[in-house]
């Protein structure tokens, strides 16, 4: 992802244009037309970046299915296919100095953050070149240099952690925002409510990004929540909260910018309910008895990559060859990541007990 922060306030969902209102085209001046063309180019480039990120996540996850089936990757693996617009759109609104705390369905979050695909893939191979040295696996990707504070595999377990980082940012006087991803399942946990209350109470710079994919593992939203309007409930903690179409990357980006701007302006935590859907099972494979094929097909019809592609085509921002090129590059990156992971070394067993306590060389003042 680009990672450059663009402080474009109040873009309308779906019509993000980094063009100031005052720059409305005056068609009779060539200069203005040129300016507008440049602006249009920038928009097209931005859309292309978003598409590239979503394609990378999609191709990466698809390859994970195959590698898991071939027993190259083991353990629990939770795929993000269908939800790409969420991480991609939110990351577009975050800056590199912002921090991210994630869940166990975090490949997409990590890739969107800029964690190299090779490092994520190697981690799933359990190799020492993985972003957690093979100690974490799919559910525990960490890249502290990119302020990616990990996949947390305890549902809602990352929320207090994220609030604590936000508290540190606030006490230090930085204007960094902490984004915490969690799901509709976590919303039922006490830790969510404790954290929402505390974050609002202390005005912490926290973006609560709730990925509502309608199922807590196999339990539908309506079976686990008495009130299924999650944004409304979050608002009761005294924080701005609204629901967003999580299948529309531009809508997500727009909403995230609005929230991030509010947070940076000192208005405390914001809550986004990102309505989305995972096409695949909860974990790598499950019987998927809790959803119908029809339901999955209906969501596939709103596929975020297809939606953005069509929008770009209609706007003349994308032709077939360019799409093929973007897709090929995504697949090549995944292939390179896989090849590197295949040949990478594993951690020596002699290092089994490392990283339990600080090692002398690591000790910080």
């Amino acid at each position, binding site marked *: 992802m680009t990672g450059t922060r663009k402080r474009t306030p109040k873009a309308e969902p779906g019509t993000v244009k980094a063009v100031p209102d005052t720059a409305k085209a005056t068609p009779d001046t060539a200069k203005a037309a040129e300016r507008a063309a440049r602006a249009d180019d920038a928009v097209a480039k931005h859309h292309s970046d978003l598409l590239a990120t979503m394609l990378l996540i999609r191709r990466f996850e698809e390859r994970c299915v195959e590698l898991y*089936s071939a027993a190259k990757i083991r*353990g*629990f693996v939770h795929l993000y296919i269908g939800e790409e617009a969420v991480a991609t759109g939110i990351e577009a609104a975050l800056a590199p100095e912002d921090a991210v705390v994630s869940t166990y369905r975090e490949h997409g979050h990590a890739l969107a953050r800029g964690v190299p695909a090779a490092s994520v893939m190697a981690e799933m191979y359990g190799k020492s070149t993985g972003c957690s040295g093979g100690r974490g696996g799919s559910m525990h990707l960490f890249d502290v240099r990119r302020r990616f504070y990990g996949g947390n595999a305890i549902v809602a377990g990352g929320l207090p952690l994220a609030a604590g980082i936000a508290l540190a940012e606030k006490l230090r006087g930085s204007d960094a925002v902490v984004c915490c991803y969690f799901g509709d399942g976590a919303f039922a946990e006490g830790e969510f409510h404790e954290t929402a209350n505390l974050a609002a109470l202390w005005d912490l710079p926290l973006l609560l990004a709730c990925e509502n994919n309608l199922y807590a593992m196999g339990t539908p939203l309506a079976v686990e929540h008495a009130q299924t309007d999650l944004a409304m409930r979050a608002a009761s903690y005294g924080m701005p909260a609204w629901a967003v179409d999580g299948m529309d990357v531009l809508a997500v980006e727009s909403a995230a910018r609005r929230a991030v701007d509010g947070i940076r302006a000192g208005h405390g935590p914001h809550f986004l309910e990102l309505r989305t859907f995972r096409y695949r099972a909860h974990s790598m494979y499950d*019987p998927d008895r809790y959803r119908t094929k029809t339901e999955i097909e209906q969501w596939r019809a709103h596929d975020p990559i297809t939606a953005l592609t069509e929008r770009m085509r209609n706007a003349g921002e994308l032709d077939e060859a360019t799409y093929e090129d973007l897709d090929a590059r995504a697949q090549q990156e995944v292939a390179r990541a896989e090849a590197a992971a295949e040949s990478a070394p594993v951690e020596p067993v002699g290092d089994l007990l490392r990283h339990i306590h600080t090692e002398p060389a690591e000790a910080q003042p």
Partner: protein
Amino acid sequence: MGEFRMPALGADMVEGTLTEWLVKPGDVVAKGAVIAVIETSKSDIEVEVFEAGTVTRLLAEPGDVLPVGAPLAVIGEAVESAPVESAPAESAAVQSAEVAAAPAAETVSAATEPPASTVPAAVEAPPPGAGVAPLPVRTEVDASAQATRPAGPPHLEAGPLVRHLAHERGIDLATVHGTGRGGRVTRADVEQLPPPGNGIRIRATPYARRLAAELRVELATVHGTGRDGAIRAADVRGASARRHEEEAVRYPAAHKKAPERRGTDRTPQAAPAPTVTAGRPAQGGASGRRTAAMRRAIAELMSRSKREVPHYYLSTTIDLTAATQWLHRANRDRAPGERLVPAALLLAATARAAREVPELNGFWQEDAFVPADAVHLAVAVSLRGGGLLTPVIHDADRLSPQDLMARLKDLVQRARRGRLRASELSGGTLTVSNLGDQGVESVLGVIHPPQVALAGFGAVVERPWAYDGMLGVRPVVTATLSGDHRATDGAVGARFLTAVDRLLQNPEGLAS
């Protein structure tokens, strides 16, 4: 062409069952198409193919249980050949099933015809064509198992219960003959063995045991004052201090210099076994109470023996002329330190007699006699400070008098230095008590349970002896036997003493 393989469908999946094919040979499949249903421990899961193409062969049938990674189908690029290939495909599947079954078939044939090399199994195997009964079948399977077992230690196979049992009884499984399948050691194999020790488990704390070894205190002689009579460190220290006190009083010289002449004299008193000198000066603080404690331990064992074991006693006087002459010859060229004494021949004769009369060599356990599988002579040694030590010469019946002599000297010397190992104080199958050095002529000893006999020898003395109608002076020794009447009757004891006599008349035979 590619293969569709059994996918890994979960973190713990190692194999899956093909429940259903959703395609047939010839079907064109797209990448991501669901083509089969696999049953895992969780549920039935529809699985997809990762390659577009044509299903050319199905390699597995519904119901097959296959490991992750096993090929299930071949996905080809060509469409046209599919119908043609479908027929061979099915026969290929059948063939591979046959191949898979082949090892099992080989097992069966091995069963009916065990390899000649597996002799024990072959002996038990029925003749070809014999009716197949359940038992032989099992034996045959063993035969094939044995045939494939690599060379090496024959067996150390035993289940955890058996291992525990063996450990509890102090039995080394490597020494046990297994009668179970494939030579496995069974519970019965272990249970029928006599315990390696004298069967009396001494309660002592770990520290007391360590201390006893360091101070060369025989735990059997220590009275425990801990809970349930457990011997504690204080008891061991008391026993040690008491011993040194008494030695200091009775044998002051021994505390200055340990005499080395013992075991080299030719006099009967020179028999090396009877005494063990102390190696450490008394540390003071000995008391009558401690002596009493040591005595109580001996009292307990001996009382038990006399209370429970109905003893009978036999004795015979043996002419040692031949033995003495043989010793003269044998010692002629030996340095004084290497000379043999009569005790070596007496031990040799006793050990071989015990082998000849196995009814006396073993243990009385749970109302039955259990013969020992070897002759381990426990040699009673009276301690100067009081008490008894019975170091054991293992496999004494296989040792020459020279070896017995060396063994005895070694045991006595190491006893002096406190270097006896616990294993050298346990395992005796028959006790020998030689009190010749104390000047007595016959020993009517008390059996050490659970042993069933004790052989005694008095001093070798010159006595008038009638032989072949003539009277002469000859060296003689009185040999006695204390027998446990529950295990044997007097006739058995008599056979034993007769054997000792006969063996001593032919010392060359003992030496060979």
